[in-house]
């Protein structure tokens, strides 16, 4: 199981701040997006949305997520 965290307006699109997903094994980002509803998966594919895996910023390219991981989707920040 992995935990997906959605920040900012993505939480509205997801209908929740976090979702849990069960994977068959280590999975690339593309497979995770395919498992989500299209109205959410579409915006998540936007390269302006940054990713953090287990609290560390990571690149989209080649990203693999495994059971127990937390993957956060971070839209552009709107400041303090």
């Amino acid at each position: 199981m992995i935990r997906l965290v959605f920040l900012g307006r993505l939480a509205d699109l997801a209908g929740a701040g976090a979702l849990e997903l069960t994977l068959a094994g280590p999975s690339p980002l593309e497979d995770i997006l395919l498992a989500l509803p299209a109205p959410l998966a579409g915006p998540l594919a936007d390269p302006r949305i940054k990713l953090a895996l287990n609290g560390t910023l990571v690149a989209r390219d080649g990203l693999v997520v495994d059971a127990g991981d937390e993957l956060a989707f971070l839209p552009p920040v709107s400041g303090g």
Partner: protein
Amino acid sequence: MRAMSWPSCRRFRVADMAADVRLALEPFDPAAELSRFTAANLSAGGVVSFLGQVRNGDGVEALELSHYAPLTLPGMQALAAEALTRWSLEGLLIIHRAGIMVPGDAIVLVAAAARHRRDAFAATDFAMDHLKSESWFWKREKVGGLWRWIEPRGEDHEDLARWV
């Protein structure tokens, strides 16, 4: 709160100077914080502060800042560390609220104490520009009973470019 819990206060030292960097999940009293900071920095000749508060009179009923715990406070701490290496400071305070606020509530307080006032001005200005455009907060406001997300502003990125 969308994000997991996280210690709301952490102190660290750079070049033997402590920065006080906090992510406040509850309202804080900026006057009391600034008094305490000023009293703790009597060897500094000058203290510059910036207080950002939820504006009154724009029809905004509430403001919510969400954060992502694994990144937000560590990012603020890294910003403080950068300010301490750039300017000669006697003290640095950064407090940033997260959660739901109403008009008049403090959002952010930055204060820098220095022997030379130019250092204190620059460090405060720098910290604010980076908090506004680079720190991990997402903002929405409630107007007429409806919440709407605030988009990033181009102006913030222009401000940031001043420090490159």
